[in-house]
């Protein structure tokens, strides 16, 4: 037993060390150093109140959560049927869909974002098709606004949802679906009463991963968004690059981190409970 205990920690240790060295240390150091600039603890407290009271920052927090939520819902709406098709597909069809999902996953975000800008711009592919077919009189504004941000982020984050859902769906025993059908359930009932409940943990996991990743997004909203689409990460970057205001950046980092950790805690709690109820 002690050996097994030791082995477990030995396996986790490298990852923990890496996390400590490359994430916790720099972020802790950054926050500590930045806040030290303010001098005393009461100064920090005053600054924190100012940050939370600032309209621009509050707007960014709301923007960030709103965009993350919309993107998560979009990714789920597109990803669920796509993952289902993937989990049922075989041979060439499977490989093709998988490649279409995975290749973008390995491509740089900047490249993908610029590609979308080519498609969505005023003279882009979509507008040319719309105008050419006479479906629109003037080009639609698909870029440098909320629409652009949502489209771009949905696309970038889709693989995370698809791969998570695919794993959950692949784990569903097809004989359970057949059994439900044999017991009198139509296709919709089989989906609602068996397939959906059995893949729901994949939905929560995928949605959470996407939401958390969306919270910290920077490149896509910065390139594809308009003046009203400022997200937290962009604001943090501005504070550092333009205003050189490290303490405010540090405080905003804490807010962003807190939202993320809170969500993760909710998820961990929820995941634990479903584990208990399920036979696995």
């Amino acid at each position: 037993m002690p050996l097994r205990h030791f082995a477990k920690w030995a396996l986790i240790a490298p990852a923990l060390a890496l996390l400590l060295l490359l994430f916790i240390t720099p972020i802790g150091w950054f926050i500590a150093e930045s806040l030290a600039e303010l001098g005393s603890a009461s100064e920090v407290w005053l600054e924190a109140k100012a940050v939370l009271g600032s309209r621009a920052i509050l707007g960014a927090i709301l923007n960030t959560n709103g965009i993350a939520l919309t993107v998560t819902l979009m990714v789920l709406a597109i990803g669920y049927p796509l993952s289902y098709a993937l989990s049922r597909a075989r041979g060439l069809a499977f490989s093709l869909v998988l490649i279409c999902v995975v290749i973008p996953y390995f491509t740089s975000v900047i490249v993908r974002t610029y590609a979308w800008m080519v498609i969505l711009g005023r003279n882009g592919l979509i507008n040319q098709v719309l105008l050419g077919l006479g479906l629109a009189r003037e080009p639609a504004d698909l870029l440098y606004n909320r629409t652009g941000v949502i489209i771009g982020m949905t696309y970038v984050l889709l693989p995370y949802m698809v791969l998570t859902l695919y794993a959950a769906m692949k784990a569903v025993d097809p004989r359970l679906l057949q059994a439900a059908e044999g017991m009198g359930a139509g296709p919709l009932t089989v989906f609602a009463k068996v397939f959906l409940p059995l893949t729901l943990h994949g939905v929560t996991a995928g949605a959470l991963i996407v939401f958390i990743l969306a919270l910290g997004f920077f490149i896509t909203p910065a390139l594809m968004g308009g003046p009203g689409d400022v997200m937290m990460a962009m604001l943090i970057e501005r504070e550092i690059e333009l205003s050189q205001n490290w303490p405010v950046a540090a405080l905003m980092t804490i807010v962003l981190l807190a939202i993320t950790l809170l969500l993760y805690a909710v998820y961990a709690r929820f995941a634990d409970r479903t584990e208990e109820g399920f036979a696995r």
Partner: protein
Amino acid sequence: MREEGFAGVRLERVSKAYGPETVVREISLAIPQGEFFTLLGPSGSGKTTTLSMIAGFTLPSQGSIHIDGRDATRAPPRARGLGMVFQNYAIFPHLDVFGNVAFPLTVRKVPKAEVARRVAEALAMVKLTGLEKRFARQLSGGQQQRVALARAIVGQPRVVLMDEPLGALDKNLRYHMQVEIKEISRRLGMTVVYVTHDQEEALTMSDRIAIMDRGRIAQMGPPREVYERPESAFVAKFLGEANLIRARRRDGALRGAGAARFEVAADRPGLAEGQVFVRPEKVRLLPEGAAPAANQVAGTVRHTAFLGNVVRYEVTLPEGEVMLCDATNASGTVLRQPGEPVGLAWNAADALLLEG
């Protein structure tokens, strides 16, 4: 389209082919209401495919299937009104015992109060009352089996299909469940179509057995009939230990490789040669120095297996063939040792001449 006179399950020249491979060939059978009918066969014999076609999960390539007098050949599974027990139980992991057993009722929009009453009845019948809130992983294999059984009968179907339902249970539990399933099916007057590869299970439970071999029904009949009157060497061997001795017709009599002369029940004079079939338990050891007669052979004990209630002797005949003889371990039994010369005899009424 309702036909008069046949409630139950009827298959009419049903075949199933996957590409060039035919797995079920022109099967016809009629299972009357209330019968416990077993499809028995080795893996790959087509028994599961046949069951799957009755269930509606597989569509036949040819032929028709009638359930309760209605043509159900192309009907979807949910429209067939069957109860089903699946090989791996297929218990829904996201539902507790109550939810699982209630499933066939809730999907048919049965009122809540009635669901509760009928689930309670079904659980009482399989002796699971009190475990309503458990999930599958909190149940033993036997309990899971009972949940599957309760779920199959809760909708009070006239026909229940069972696909190797006891395959995963240990021997003791298996026997208990065999008795219980049989008991419940009789009490509810259900037609049961049961699939198994276990011949003992088939013999214990069935009113009638169809033995399947490479997509065809090799023989069909009540347990005792198919066991004692097999029509082929395949059926004879599949249903238990069988002695099959080469015989040839000479001067109007069946003779073995040596001097032995055989007489069989219902001789088939048309067969010039074949195999004489007799079950080991119908063969008796001769007392020393018996007079030579029909259906008697001499040999040497090769192996003695003491099985408790029975002693099984493997006896080598002078021609090299091996015969089995199951002797009851009656009072005062003296065991014959390997190497001992013995005589074996059986009654003509217990022997058959089979082709091959």
